[in-house]
C-alpha cells in the first residue's frame, strides 16, 4: 500500500527494457522479410499433389478416388474423374483426375485430405508466401499448379517422404515378385514395365535436388 508493489513493477519493466537488448530469450521476434525462420518439418500450409518421375501427368499418384473431396471439411477440393485408366506405379490400371482443383481461399490447412488419402498422393506444402491480388483466379489452384515432384516432397518433409518411399518400394517389390512367378512372356513384359515405372519412385532413383521448371517459374 505504500507503493512498493508499483516500484517492484517498475523494476521489472526496467529489467525487461535492458534485457531486451542483450537476451534473445526476451526479444523473440525476428524481422521478417530479412530474417526468416526455417519452417518446421511438420509445418503445413496448403496441399499439393505428388508425382513420381519426370512427367507429372504420367507419374501422378492421385487416382481420383475422391475420398479427400468427400472428407474435406470446408469442401474446397473439386475432382473430375477420368473415363479411361492408366497404369500406376505397380502397373495396376487406375483412373486419374481430369480436373483437380483446390480453392486455397477456402482451404483451412487441416491436413484431413492427407490423412485420408490411401495412395500417398496428396501432401501438405510448406510454402506460405502465396499472397496474390487476384482473389478468385489466383487462389484457385489447378492440376498443373498442384502437381509437384516427389523430390520436392522429400525436400520439405524428409522423414515423412522416407517412410512413404519405403512403403511404396515394398509394394513394388511385392508386385515384382508376383510378376516373376508368372511364366508367360506377356506377364514378364508387364513386370518389366512396372519395374521401370517404379524405379522412379525409389529414393535411390530420384534426383532429390531436381524440381520442375514450371514450378520454379511460378514462384
Amino acid at each position, binding site marked *: 500500500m505504500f507503493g512498493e508493489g508499483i516500484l517492484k513493477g517498475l523494476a521489472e519493466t526496467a529489467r525487461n527494457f535492458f534485457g531486451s537488448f542483450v537476451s534473445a530469450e526476451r526479444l523473440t521476434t525476428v524481422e521478417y522479410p530479412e530474417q526468416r525462420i526455417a519452417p518446421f518439418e511438420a509445418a503445413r500450409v496448403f496441399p499439393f499433389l505428388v508425382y513420381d518421375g519426370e512427367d507429372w501427368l504420367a507419374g501422378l499418384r492421385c487416382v481420383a478416388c475422391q475420398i479427400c473431396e468427400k472428407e474435406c471439411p470446408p*469442401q474446397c*477440393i*473439386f475432382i473430375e474423374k477420368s473415363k479411361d485408366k492408366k497404369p500406376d506405379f505397380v502397373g495396376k490400371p487406375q483412373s486419374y483426375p481430369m480436373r483437380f482443383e*483446390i480453392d486455397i481461399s477456402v482451404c483451412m490447412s487441416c491436413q484431413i485430405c492427407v490423412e485420408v488419402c490411401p495412395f500417398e498422393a496428396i501432401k501438405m506444402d510448406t510454402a506460405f508466401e502465396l499472397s496474390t491480388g487476384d482473389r478468385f483466379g489466383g487462389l*484457385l489452384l489447378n492440376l498443373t499448379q498442384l502437381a509437384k515432384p516427389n523430390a520436392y516432397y522429400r525436400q520439405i518433409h524428409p522423414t515423412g517422404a522416407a517412410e512413404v518411399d519405403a512403403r511404396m518400394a515394398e509394394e513394388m517389390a511385392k508386385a515384382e515378385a508376383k510378376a516373376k512367378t508368372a511364366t508367360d512372356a506377356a506377364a514378364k513384359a508387364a513386370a518389366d514395365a512396372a519395374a521401370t515405372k517404379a524405379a522412379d519412385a525409389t529414393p535411390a532413383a530420384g534426383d532429390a535436388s531436381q524440381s520442375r521448371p514450371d514450378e520454379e517459374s511460378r514462384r
Partner: protein
Amino acid sequence: MKTVEQIKAAIEAAVAGAGVEVVPNPSPSGQHSLRIEPGRAVEVARFLRDDAELALDFLSNVTGVDWLDREIEETVTETRTVTRMVDGVEQAVEETVEETRQRIEPGFLEAVYHLYSVAKKHGPVVLRMRTVNRTDQVELPSLTPIWRSAEFQEREVFDLYGIIFTGHPDLRRLLMWPGFKDHPMRRDYVEPDDFEYEPTAHDRVLERALAHQAASEAASTAAGEKASEPAEAAEQQGTEADA
C-alpha cells in the same frame, strides 16, 4: 452414485405422478437418461437439486434434439369383429387378421439436460423432456428457475430448435438476430438461397450462385419497374421513425 433405476425410484417416491421413464443408451458410454413428464418437470428438477443424497446442484449442459417424423413399418396382429354372411345369415364373427401397415410416428423436439453434483462430485444424470410434436405444441417447462445455468442455454435451444420454455424469465433469441424466422438447427431446415456469385472451384456452387444471381437480377428489375411508389412510402416512414 445411484443408478438410473434407483434415481427413478427416488423421484417417483418424492414427486407423485412424475412419470419417469428410463431411456437406455446402447453406446459404451452407458449414460442412460431419464425421461420426465413436462408437467411435473420443475418439481422433479427441484427434488433432484435439493435431495441430500443426489444434490445435483450443477446443470452442465442443456441442449435440444430434433427427431423427425418417422415412417414405421410394422406387422400388426389384430382381432376384430366383422359382419359376414355365415350360412346365409348375417353374423358378427371374430377374426384374427395380420397385416403390414405403415405408420407415421410423429416427430418431436427433445430437451436434454446433463446434471452433475458439485457437492458430491458425481454425475452425469441425463434428463430428457419431449414436446408433443414439432409444430404447434412445442412448449416445455423451463428449468431456469431451478438452475440458472439453463438461462442462456435454453435461450439457445429456443433460438435454434424452437422449443418454447414456459417460465423462462427472458426468452429471446440468443444467437440469431431478433427478426430471424425459423430455427436453423432443425433437421428439416432449408438453407436460404442467398448465394452470391463467387467463382469457386465447385461447379455446383457456381451453378447455384449463377441461378441465384439470375433470379435476384430478375427480381430486382421487376421490382424496379413497378415498385418505386411503395419504396418511397417506406422511405418516408423510415424518416418519420428516425425523427
